[in-house]
């Protein structure tokens, strides 16, 4: 399976890109896009960083093993996940 790298753009300029050197093995570009959306959704829901004021300003700049740009996935493209019963949050839905 090809490996995709999920670099996070959090502000303009070279210092505004957190480079992913590890990547994830995924079937194809569509799977990479799904992974980016799911990761972004979890980050918006649970993770807080001093250096990222607004997740909606962020995007994944996905590259392939050759370092070529594959796809940009803005965090604003996520929609809140349906309540996940396994996590017990269905009670609050």
């Amino acid at each position, binding site marked *: 399976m090809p490996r995709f790298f999920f670099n996070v753009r959090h502000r303009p300029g070279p210092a505004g890109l*957190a480079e992913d050197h590890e990547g994830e093995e995924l079937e194809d570009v569509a799977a990479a896009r799904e992974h980016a959306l799911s990761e972004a959704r*979890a980050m918006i829901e649970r993770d807080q960083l*001093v250096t990222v004021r607004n997740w909606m300003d962020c995007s994944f700049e996905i590259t392939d093993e050759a370092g070529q740009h594959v796809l940009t996935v803005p965090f604003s493209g996520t929609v809140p996940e349906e309540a996940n019963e396994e996590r017990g949050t269905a009670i609050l839905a």
Partner: protein
Amino acid sequence: MSQPQQATVRNRLLKALPPADFALLQPHLELIATELRLPLIKPNEQVKQLYFPESGFSSITTSGSDGRVEIGIIGREGLVGAIPLLLGSDRTPHDHFVQSPGEMLAIGTEALCAALDRSASLHKLLLRFAQVQHVQTAQTAFVNATYQIEVRLARWLLMCHDRLDGDELRLTHDFLSMMLGVQRSSATLAVQALEGHRLIKALRGRLTILNRDAMVALADDGYGLPEAEYARLIEGA
């Protein structure tokens, strides 16, 4: 193989023991190599051995349906397995495994219990370590509830640095995200933030601490409480 000598052991608990207490443990200590990810104590399984780390350190984690999160670290300041055993349980729901490879002095549960029965001072010192470990776990709860990820990363790296020889730590962001209980990309963002301020240097799979003082300042009240308790209770500072 020769028995470990108190003058040359690196484990700070063993060093802090009165010589008579060390002598009770000495014949039962066995030096073992501890490679990365080696399970030391598995969740809900009887504790058969405890471990005094000489170098490297272990991670204590708890697991949920979303994966595992680290709740504590034990290195050469401690004894892996002290909490369940000293507090009267033969097992623990938490996973203990090697997070940084090195060497540990293993001791069988029965041998340690026999020594505890014979020495009130040994028992007291190990209970004091259990108290420090409890404070560390509580501190993890405080930090996770109060601070954002960069600060949590700084605290975690300081705890690792305290237990390492040198300034370099080998780890992936995937592993780091598990240790901090965050998404992998959030760990990548936090590493980049600390690197941008030259607190650390990150290379693929490796991380070097460049400015410890700045990291202590960043970690704020997140770092230092269990470390101070250790100094007070174990080393009499």
